[in-house]
Structures are given as structure tokens and as C-alpha cells.
């Protein structure tokens, strides 16, 4: 009796789970970055795409490094990431057939409001980073091979600095957790503007440096190779890829605002 009940119970659980799975067959899996997910962009643009095409987009939000790995293994149908050099390499390696510029925003440096390194009046981002390194002010780095982390490391390189020492803290975390930690230890950190604007726990952190051209943050869409991974939903993924750079998609991106501030700027050619 008890066993029968247990089996009925297990069976009904199984049914519920499989019915959840079968609910939408027309979907693609998109590997993207935490910055786009955390800022709420997808909640704003995916419904518009789904309404037009009937295709649902399931977003797995990870760092750009991990997104590339998911793409290489064939576990996602499409990629939307922000590391142009890495993306071009990805295409050159034959994992993707096409890369398109979709949108951009910029990186900013945030830090404790008393600004111990005095970067507020820096002329360039190189200058700002040199001041942080020279004053050995605590700096929280993502340290997770994400697009933001890669951009940060390139800027240290441009400034001729090898960031190391007790002041430079590699956290190995996503953007949100890194901001939480930076807020907790009054450290400077390097973040994309979208995550920063949508972030709710800044405590004493404030935006200290912005506006240098070197802080440009380009997002690109990758269409994965049908040859390498024939099981992927290429037709559906191609529709998504095309929609992102279409007038409708670009408009939807431009329309997304948090607190009256536009977070992503469409720039498809």
C-alpha cells in the first residue's frame, strides 16, 4: 500500500517535471553574461522577440570565459558576450560561423566615496589605474576570466602595471558578488555600467571614473557552427541572431532603461 502510494507520488512528480519540459519546444538556449542578466535587459527584450517569432529564449548567465566553454561544448545554441578579441578567436577556431556587433555600453571605476587614490580628477583611465596602484588602495578584481575581467587586465597592461600585492584582490566572482565584496571592504572595482546602475547594495561605493574611450564595452552575438554541432537549433538561433541586429531588436535594446537611464546602446551595422 505504502509502496503503491510512493510510486504514484514519484510518477506524478515525474509527469510534472516532464510536462514542464515539453511545455515549450520552440526554444533556444542562450549563453550570455551576468551583466546583461543582472541588469534586467533580457526580461525587457526577450518577450518582444518571443511575441514576434514564438521562440522562447532560455538564458544561462555566466562569465564570458565560461560562455565560450559552453559554446565550444555545444551546450548552447547562441552566445551573446562581450570580449571582441575572444569572439573573433572563437569564429577563427571554427566554433561560430558569424559574429555581429549588437550593442555597447561602457565600463566605469567605482570606489569608496572618500577616494583615497584620488582618481576623480584623472585625465585617462591609465592615469586612474596608476594612481590606485601607486597608493596601493584596495582594488577588487573579478579574477574569473569574464569579459569584464579580461578588459580590466588589458587596461593594467596598457598602464604598464602588473597588479599584485596585498591591495590587489582577485575574488573569482561574478560582477554582483564582486560589487558586494568591494562595498564591504571599501575597495575600488572595475564594473560595466549596466550592472552598476542596476545594483542595489552600493553602501559607500560611488562612481569615480568614467568617459575614457578605452572603457568602451562592445557586446557581440555569435551564431554557432552547424558543422561542428549538428544537433543545435540553428534555424531558431539564426532568427534570434538576426532579430538582435534588426531594427526591432535594436529599438527594443535602446528602449530599455533603469531609473530613466539607458543602459545599452545598439550599434549593429
Amino acid at each position: 500500500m505504502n509502496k503503491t502510494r510512493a510510486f504514484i507520488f514519484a510518477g506524478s512528480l515525474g509527469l510534472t517535471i516532464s510536462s514542464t519540459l515539453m511545455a515549450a519546444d520552440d526554444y533556444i538556449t542562450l549563453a550570455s553574461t551576468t551583466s546583461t542578466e543582472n541588469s534586467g535587459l533580457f526580461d525587457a527584450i526577450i518577450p518582444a522577440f518571443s511575441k514576434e517569432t514564438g521562440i522562447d529564449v532560455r538564458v544561462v548567465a555566466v562569465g564570458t570565459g565560461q560562455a565560450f566553454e559552453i559554446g565550444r561544448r555545444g551546450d548552447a545554441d547562441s552566445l551573446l558576450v562581450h570580449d571582441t578579441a575572444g569572439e573573433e578567436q572563437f569564429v577563427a577556431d571554427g566554433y561560430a560561423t558569424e559574429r555581429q556587433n549588437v550593442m555597447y555600453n561602457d565600463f566605469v571605476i567605482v570606489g569608496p566615496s572618500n577616494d583615497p587614490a584620488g582618481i576623480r580628477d584623472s585625465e585617462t583611465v591609465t592615469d586612474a589605474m596608476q594612481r590606485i596602484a601607486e597608493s596601493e588602495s584596495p582594488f577588487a578584481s573579478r579574477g574569473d576570466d569574464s569579459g569584464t575581467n579580461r578588459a580590466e587586465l588589458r587596461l593594467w597592461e596598457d598602464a604598464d602595471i602588473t597588479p599584485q600585492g596585498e591591495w590587489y584582490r582577485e575574488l573569482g566572482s561574478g560582477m554582483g558578488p564582486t560589487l558586494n565584496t568591494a562595498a564591504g571592504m571599501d575597495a575600488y572595482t572595475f564594473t560595466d555600467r549596466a550592472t552598476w546602475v542596476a545594483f542595489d547594495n552600493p553602501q559607500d561605493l560611488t562612481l569615480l571614473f568614467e568617459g575614457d574611450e578605452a572603457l568602451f564595452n562592445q557586446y557581440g552575438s555569435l551564431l554557432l557552427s552547424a558543422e561542428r554541432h549538428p544537433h543545435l537549433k540553428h534555424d531558431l538561433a539564426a532568427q534570434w541572431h538576426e532579430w538582435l541586429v534588426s531594427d526591432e531588436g535594436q529599438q527594443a535594446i535602446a528602449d530599455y532603461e533603469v531609473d530613466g537611464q539607458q543602459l545599452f546602446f545598439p550599434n549593429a551595422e
Partner: protein
Amino acid sequence: MLTSDNAFSTALTLILGMDSALISIVALSLQVSLMAVVIASLIALPLGAALALWRFPGRNVMIVALNALMGLPPVVAGLCVYLLLSRAGPLGEWGLLFTPTAMVIAQVILVMPIIAALTRQQVEALHGEYAEQLNSLGLTRLRMIPTLLWDARFGLLTVILAGFGRASAEVGAVMIVGGNIDGVTRVMTTSIVLETSKGNLPMALGLGIILLALVTMINAIAHIIGETAKRRLG
């Protein structure tokens, strides 16, 4: 400002609002964890009992391995299941990655050792007590398994609850194999991680309070069932 007040009121607002997104997250959390515990129990209860009754070479190794696996980090279990189910992995053809089924598989791996190891210990103690009696009835070891499991049922209920606690509390495994996809594989724990990363701490803590309340409720139900059954049996 973050105050516990704030988190409680957030939790209350969420519950009273019967937010449909929240309901589907709660439902999926329960489905995945309960399913994992049911499957793990079906494997682990007989396995634990068998380990208690049979003596064979390698038995001690198995017992130590099961005990050690009780401390398996969820993120390692998740990574193994990810590599197994990934398209580039041996079971990639099944296309199970980033589905609730993958989450159930990962949690079964986490829960199974706990239930098996603790079952072995309970059944071994019980067998020590009743060995003579059972032998005089001429029962084979195979026939002893259901008898001993049934006799140990109240203790085993706690064992299964320990397994459920592990399943419902972990986030490392379901995050990797589920992908925290909105409306598909997002559960309570991964939502809490997401809200924390957005800096929305009252919401994160509010969800934590709801999760804790749910787990308390399930434990209370199990406790009441156990007590009632005990009383009936006198």
C-alpha cells in the same frame, strides 16, 4: 537599507502576493528535491541494509567511501554531472543539460550516500539486537532486508529528512547543471544567489525565509506522521 525587518516584510509581501513566478520557483524546488530524495531512497535504503547484513571483501572500503561521499561538495557533483550530460560528454545525446532532470540527477548523487550510510548504521544496530531471533525464524539475509527496514522506519524517516535537507539546501550543483534559467530551472537557492548578486539583499533574505519555512513545514509533517504512527502501534 538592509534590516531583518525589511527581509521579513519582503517575504510576507511575496507570500501574500502569491506571485506566480515565486510559486513556480517554489514548486520546482520541491519537485526537484523530493524527486531526488525518492529516487535516492529507492536505491540507498536497500543498499544500506545490504551493507549492514553481508560480509564481503571490500565492504569496509565501500562503507568508508559512502561515509566520505556524505561530504561531497555539491559543486563537484554538479561539475561531474555537467561533464556527463554536456553535448561533448558521454550522455550528451540525451540533451538533458540545463533541464530539471539534470538537477534531479545531481541531487540524487548528493543525497544517496547520506541515506545509504545512515541506513547501514541503523540497520546494523537493529540487526545486532535481533540477529538470534531472525536466525531462529530461518530468514535468509535477503528476506531480512524488508523486515529490518520496516522495523527501523522511524529512524529512517529522520535519515530521509537529512537527505531532503541536503537536497533543498544545496545550490552549487543545481546552478551548474540547471543554469538558473528563468521559468525553467530557477529554484529557491539559485534565486537567492541571483538576488544577492544583484545587491537586492532584502529580496534574497526574504526568499531565504520562505525556503526555511517550507523546509520546516515538511519536517513538521514528517514528524507528525511519525508520531501518529508510533502512537497507533502503541
